[in-house]
């Protein structure tokens, strides 16, 4: 808050190599001016270029909006790139207080170089210090070697003296043993015992080899029997594939009725979202400050539509390959996840205006947690798919926080909204599942012959589950407001494609015993939601 800050800032700029002359007079007063702001704007651009080469801050100095944009973008840039918190109000002042804020950036840029110089000096001093210990260490080692050699010499001398004195005593024993004759009988006995030991070891090795051969023959016979059983099972499976199940025509009629009901439901959702957006528009005009925040999600929602179309193309490819059921399922899930992300982004904008919706989001989030836990012990397939979906949600959350986060508080707030977005997507999915569940129960009560045979019952339940998953994808599409035409087209295509896929799935997975449990839990959730 004094001339000292302005002078120090000028010094930092000279040390960093600012190409133009920084006039101290421009900032050396308590009141800013437009000419001072020109200089501050140039400094901000140049400093941003230093921190990240090639970076350019949006905004300018011609109008107030551009100046505000420049200050805000500069503040965001320095927070994200260099972790420097700058007060934007002081930046906009373009006065003596601005120098103190800009020094936070220049001090960071100047200190590493000087620290390196200091480190070099310290290294030189350390080298100088290390030279002396090395010399002293060498001398100490020489001293230790000399002392060790002296001790060793003394000990060896003593040993030699002792040994020479003992030689006189052992001389007689040595002569007597050298002249003693060998006994032939003892030598023969020793050689025979050695031969017998070796023969015993040979016999035991042969016995182990025989046992191994027996085991090998047994394993060969087991393998042949297992191979024959596999061949018989495969022939039985092929026979079952050729049989068309009973009551298939009846199932197709029920599916058409279900499609008509879904179209009516979709129209209602579309009308509700349109009315809600109009209500938000009226509320939005009362608070114009937040309009830049809302514009960004709207702009960001555009790039996701082409990605959805790309996924549709993938489904067309899957239609040709009827046997590739796994790829078809993955494609459908991916498409639904992407659409949920789009839905979450648009809903994010709405939630930022109406605080009451947050409470509903929290409740849906709690239900989502319960449903997620229910999913996992169900099937192996369901364990893999939620993991992929969660990673996409996380990416979406970060993207949402980035452009909005001007400082740490805003970044944290954005992160929380990202979590709420995930909750919304899951809640929508729950809503989608409720309709087909109720319709299944009604159809089951009307027709008692549907559950008479075991195979027919399994096929019916599997077809119901497939229908629910398809409807959940289409309900996610309904979240887009202002895109009704494209959404409707996408919904129709998805519905048709999913029905074909379901038919092929029912044929292949007729014998899976875990499906009824999933259906039961679906009924449970529908009760809670209603």
């Amino acid at each position, binding site marked *: 808050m004094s*001339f000292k800050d302005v002078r120090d800032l000028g010094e930092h700029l000279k040390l960093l190599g600012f190409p133009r002359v920084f006039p101290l007079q421009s900032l050396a007063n308590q009141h800013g001016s437009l000419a001072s702001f020109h200089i501050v704007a140039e400094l901000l651009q140049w400093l941003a270029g230093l921190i990240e080469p090639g970076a350019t801050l949006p905004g300018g100095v011609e109008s107030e909006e551009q100046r505000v944009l420049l200050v805000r973008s500069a503040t965001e840039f320095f927070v994200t790139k260099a972790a420097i918190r700058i007060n934007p109000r002081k930046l906009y002042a373009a006065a003596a207080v601005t120098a103190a804020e800009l020094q936070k950036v220049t001090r960071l840029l100047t200190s590493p170089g000087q620290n390196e110089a200091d480190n070099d000096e310290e290294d030189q001093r350390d080298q100088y210090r290390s030279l002396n210990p090395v010399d002293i260490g060498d001398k100490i080692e020489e001293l230790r070697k000399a002392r060790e050699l002296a001790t060793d010499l003394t000990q060896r001398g003593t040993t030699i003296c002792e040994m020479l004195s003992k030689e006189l005593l052992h001389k007689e024993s040595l002569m007597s043993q050298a002249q003693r004759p060998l006994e032939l009988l003892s030598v023969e006995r020793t050689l025979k015992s050695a031969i017998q030991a070796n023969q015993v070891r040979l016999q035991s090795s042969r016995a182990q080899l025989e046992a191994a051969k027996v085991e090998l023959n047994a394993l060969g016979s087991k393998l042949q029997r297992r191979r024959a059983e596999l061949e018989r099972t495969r022939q039985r499976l092929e026979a079952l594939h050729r049989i068309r199940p009973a009551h298939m025509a009846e199932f197709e009629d029920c599916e058409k009725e279900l499609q008509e009901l879904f179209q009516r439901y979709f129209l209602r959702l579309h009308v509700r979202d349109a009315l809600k957006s109009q209500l938000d528009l009226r509320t939005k005009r009362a608070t114009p400050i937040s309009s830049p925040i809302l514009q960004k999600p709207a702009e960001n929602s555009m790039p996701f539509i082409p990605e959805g179309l790309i996924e549709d193309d993938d489904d067309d490819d899957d239609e040709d390959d009827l046997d590739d059921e796994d790829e078809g399922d993955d494609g459908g899930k991916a498409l639904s996840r992407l659409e949920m992300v789009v839905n979450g982004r648009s809903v994010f904008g709405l939630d930022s205006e109406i605080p009451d919706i947050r409470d509903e989001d929290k409740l849906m989030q709690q239900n989502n947690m319960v449903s997620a836990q229910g999913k996992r012990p169900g099937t192996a397939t369901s364990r893999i798919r939620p993991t992929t979906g969660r990673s996409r949600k996380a990416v979406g959350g970060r993207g949402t926080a980035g452009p909005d986060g001007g400082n740490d508080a805003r970044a944290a707030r954005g992160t929380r909204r990202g979590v709420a977005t995930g909750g919304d997507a899951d809640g929508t999915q729950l809503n989608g599942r409720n309709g087909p569940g109720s319709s299944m129960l009604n159809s089951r009560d009307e027709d008692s012959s549907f559950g008479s045979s075991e195979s027919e019952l399994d096929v019916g339940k599997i077809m119901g589950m497939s229908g629910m998953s398809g409807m959940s994808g289409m309900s996610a599409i309904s979240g887009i407001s202002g895109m009704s035409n494209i959404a409707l087209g996408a919904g129709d295509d998805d519905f048709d494609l999913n029905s074909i896929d379901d038919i092929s799935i029912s044929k292949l997975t007729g014998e899976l015993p875990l499906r009824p449990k999933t259906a039961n839990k679906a009924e449970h959730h529908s009760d809670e939601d209603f």
Partner: protein
Amino acid sequence: MKLKTRICKKNSIRNSEKVEESSKSTTNCPLSCVDWSSNEEIYFVSDDHQIFKWSDVSRDSVEVAKLPDDFVPTDMHWLLLGGRSSGGGKGSDTLLICSNDGRFVILNKSARVERSISAHAAAISSGRWSPDGAGLLTAGEDGVIKIWSRSGMLRSTVVQNEESIRCARWAPNSNSIVFCQGGHISIKPLAANSKIIRWRAHDGLVLSLSWSTQSNIIASGGEDFRFKIWDAQGANLFTSAAEEYAITSVAFNPEKDYLLVGTFNLLKLCHSNGWSYNTARFSSPRVGSIFNLSWSADGTQATCGTSTGQLIVAYAIEQQLVSGNLKATSKSRKSITLKDIATGTQDILDFPQRVVSFGLGYGHLVVATTNQVHIYNEKYINTPIIIDGRNDTRVIEVGKKYFMILDALSIWVYTYTGRLHLNPRYPGSQAQIPLLTWRSLSLGLDVLAIRDNSDPTVLHLFDLIPGASRQYDPHSLRAKQQLVQIAACRAGSPEDQFVAFIDSNRELFVSESRNLNSERIDEIYKIGTQLTAIMWASETNILVGVHDSCYSIWYCPGEGASDPTIIALTTITLDTTEFGKHITIESFEESVLTFRSAGALLPVNVNMYCEILHRALLEGQWQQALKICRMGQHSSLWATLAAVATRKHQLQISEEAYSAALQIDKVSYLQHLKALTPSSAEQMAENSLMLGRMLEAETILLHGKKIEQAVGLALRMHNWRRALEISQKHKGEQPELVPRVLQERRKYLKALQREEWDPLYLPLVAKEEADNTSE
């Protein structure tokens, strides 16, 4: 002149900074407060709130004290009350440190805080002790300058303004304050009812100021990459060329004519006129801008505080003095090279201590180190004479018979054998010792002239003749204006000793410095105007002076001072446009005059015949002098001869000289003189009249009992009162004198056609009329 710089390492600082690095991320704080506490110690405070002391002996920094964390220092100044002693300072020395939040603290020598005062509402930009030590000033960024007593009491608020003050400095006489606001510089006298002087100095901000103590000029460094030099009235004397960066600091040398200028990565040593001696550039490591400059008290070394926190110590070396065939050059801090071009020898003189100053002249080299003085004779280089105990030598003046040393204690006059000749004292001299500079002193042949610092119009003249009765009782000469520069003549006979001085109106005056008569009457004659510098010749009484665009040579300034005609005839004025601007006189040895302009030396020859004529006259060779004049045939030669011959009562020679100089009136008067009786009282009196000494002539006649001639002299000069007094005093001896005076008075009144008005004559006239009536 070169500038040798060294960047000091901060060994102990890094140890303490390592501890701080754990708490702080940045370790390099700007160093903006540096000052010398003695000639070997530097105190500095940087933004890490610690006071350090760097010593020249150990070349290391030691932490002295630690300031509070909210105390960001902005300025620092030492008050050295012990006369700038180099022994480490006395206990009464105090340190002033100002901070960024408007406070200043006063610490004593042991770094204990004596006072802590909240002085300003904004940051204090400058805090300085006054040169006389009576108080201190603080200038703040709130536009206020306050003066405090030494103990920290507020005395007065000098300046109250809205614009922030960037820098403020005292005047050398502690009577004014110069400060800068934005691009303007202002001078505020402290006297009541004095107007402020304000002028626009730089295109950008003025960043630093310095007021010279010995030449009374102001230097300023600005943001427009220039430094400028101003006089005390705001006139611009010098403007430098534009540098690459803003000039962040300027500092005048306290003892010599040097100016140190600091900018980004650059340090420049200049002359007081502005031209540059040397430039020290710092490329690796880069030090940043030099925020603060501080000269040591002896003026030989300076310290710099930089923006990167490095401390730089700079020494001025390669000083060079030339005298005749001798050249002395200081190669380093402790060695001097003495070269003799007559014999072709070169000697390197090494000294145990740092060389503070040295003087060369008359075949002798006098070198002052921190504690000793070494005297070298050019014939006996190997055996110098050493004088111990002279601390802090500041000025060395070399004369023909003696040399003079001004140190921290007193003024000393020595012979070249090392014997103390005189320790001059005058009223108040000891108190003025710290304030004397080389401009206040001048050593002549047998005279030492000292300007009184408390009253700059008084000039003390000490007689150096051995055994003189007035040796310890100086004669005081009083001028009308303040004296700016003094010059005592360095040669001549014992009877012809003169002193010349320039006053504040830049007018040149000449007066005799010794008078053998018992009664002394000071005659001060003005012989020149618009001068900036003067110097006497080393062997003759020839004076040279520099004007603004020309220089003048007075071949007979002392002997002919009483006669304006002689002065006009013996003065030669020459143009200096081809030399350049800001010319100073470097030396005047025999007949070679050396000027210096922007660093270039310009030797000029004076008239050779005049120089030889002076030598002949000095030895009394009148026939030789006549031959020289006839050979030269220049009017200045004849005028010089006439003046000296008249002074020496050589009537025949002076008559011939005046004839050659076409002074007809003087020739006829001299013929009248020759008609009188030789060596009589009348002739001596008339000769004194020729020299303009009326009182002397009257005295000669009265002592010779020539009462009638004395009255006649008074009547000729129309000195009526004096004539009547003398005639009435000697009425008993010669009663006819009174009627004669009355008769002459009547003739005078009849010529004027007036009645008697003099109260001394009225009773006599009335008495005479009464007598006539009775008859």
